[in-house]
């Protein structure tokens, strides 16, 4: 019984970890993406740079993934 509750709380924790990380990534990418498209519209050469800046925050969600994974392992 207690183990079930512990497992449930771990699962919720894992969910919060990846969910909030994904939200943060999306937020960061939203801002950068809008600016990058604007820059690329003015200068084609900015496309590659823009893409690079745009994908930088993606690492945040991976931190969430790793933490979630480590939590799930504890279940």
């Amino acid at each position: 019984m207690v183990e079930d509750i512990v497992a449930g709380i771990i699962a919720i924790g894992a969910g919060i970890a990846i969910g909030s990380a994904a939200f943060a990534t999306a937020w960061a990418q939203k801002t950068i993406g809008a600016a990058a498209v604007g820059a690329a519209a003015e200068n084609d050469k900015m496309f590659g740079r823009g893409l690079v800046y745009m994908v930088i925050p993606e690492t945040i969600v991976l931190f969430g993934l790793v933490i979630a994974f480590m939590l799930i392992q504890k279940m």
Partner: protein
Amino acid sequence: MFRPREMKRTVIIGSKNDLEKTIELLHSLEIVHINDYVSDDKEDEVRLGTPMTQASDISQYLLKLRSNAQLLEIDAENPLFSAKMTESQVKKDIDLKIRDIELSVLSLVETRARIEEHLKKIDDRISQLKPFAGIDIPLEKYRGYESIAVFTGYVRDLEKFESELSKITDEFDIFCSNDNEQMVALFISKIFAEKVMKLLPECGYTEVKVPEGKGLPEQSIKKLIISKQELSEKLEQTKNELLEFRKRNAEFILSSEEYLSIQVQKAEAPVRFATTDHSFVIDCWIPSHDLKRVRDVLEREIDGALYIEEFEVKHEENPPTLLENPKPVRRFEFLLDIYSTPNYRDIDPSFVLSLIFPLFFGLMIGDIGYGILLMVFGFIFMKKFKDSEGLSNIGWYIIVAGIFAFIFGLFLFGDMFGLAFQSSTAEGGHTIYSWSSLLGINIPIPSLIHKMEAFGLTQLLVISIIAGSLHLGLGLLFGIVSERKHNPKHAVAKIGLIFVLIALVLIIFVMADWTIGQWLAPLKQSVVAPLLWNYIIPSVKAGIYFGDLLIPYITIICGALGTVIILLSTGGFGLVEVLEITSHLISYTRLAAICVAKGAMAFAFNVIGIGLIVSGNIVLGIVGVILTVLMQLIVFALGSLSAGIQAIRLHYVEFFMKFYKGEGVKFTPFKYVRKYTTNE
């Protein structure tokens, strides 16, 4: 292969009498990158060159030719011929031919425009006459009365109008259109005109003005339609003539346009040189490898009248970049250009990119079915866009990535379209479809890693970290090599980072102890076993426990050593890079994440689709087949897109940041890429 071609700055000085010939020679050599001369106000003697005298004439011909090509709608992408013309063929009577073409095109286009205008006028007239066609009154009878007012137009509520009208007076004549439209012509004494005008809006009246002219409208329309037909035939004929003309002359127009463009390019070249009253100076970059050839040709052809001197590259100079790679690798240079053109001192990562990009992509997709689809799709893409350099390159990447996805699918994951060939033997309980269970035959392709199991995910994460550490290590090595000369401090800091990287990887290895133990198990019988189990593994595993976490001594030593090296070489600020490399290493877990996410999506769709197919109901079965195909296509499209973006991102962000500077100038030789003509 790993460095751009070595360049030499070369200055060519000569007499203006030899200018034209020099330009001709440099253009034919196709290996000289000219530096534009920027005029300096302080030097009165040296000025910017002026275009050759023939430049403006040629430009004018070119202008005419291009406007004709536009009028004829000649499509340069889709030429109607394949044989190339020689330059002397094109040159012959070029001015006469261009004038001829101009006259013919002008007269044809003018005729076409005249006919089209005429047709438009006829259409206008017909639409004006049309409302009156149903009323048998000649047009001239609508006008010219002293005491009668005439109203023409549509009346929505005709019955009300007539009854109200009869209340005003009975001295009127009303004609209704006989073709069911509510077109009305009312002739009424001018005395009642005012009252009628008040009444009309109440009955939904829209005025239609009587067109100019005479005669019965219906007859006029008939006549107009006949002449319209005649004109349309004429128009068709003119259009055909234009098409014929285009067919006959496209070859000449395209090839002479090319010829003239080359001439203009040569004639305007002096604008890029420095000149004095009697001499010229060409400042250019030439690959060291080709320098001797250029020198020989120039000296032989101009008889030693040119002064040529070459200089070593100076530190502050930024020579253009000319990469040198075999053809399959050269296609990947495009990915570098999207990021930023490599500069002269950069290491050329195209070769690494051409190997690792498809490798990462293949690992993320890892499926025989999608691999084959990718290859087919890439092949079609390449064929379809063979004219566009960028798009055909992307087609090539898709093909190579497909090959790798196929290999990973066959040897590592053992699955096709998200379905394993053999059922999973791990504990789970519920039935999972596999190709073997569905087809009823045993397909002997094992899955070494099951994407959908927790253990599989752990294995994939460890593989990702190993791949990441090797990739980052290579990037750091490149960084050390490229910075060792002009920025030794940074090069040393990168050595420190390599130590930190080793420390990090070891912690992760110890954490994934059990997984790696499984991989090493087959080695237990081999000759390396004593070395591994007696020395390497114990030495890695020796360490201090922090709660559950084991920190190996080697990690502590490497980490401390690396940090000290970084601190000594770049100061406290360099420690940011320690954090950066940690996040970069974790960033590679996306390889596992995408792989599993895509696998899970395909798995979920398969459970839905195949469940329907094997349900036994025919209707459900058909729905299942359609659903499965659609959902597989979705997985394929989404998976390939995200795998492509993530694979390139791992290069752009994690890998390139370690050594790649970019912002180079592309080597653009003084030449023209011929499509329709040849030099001979």
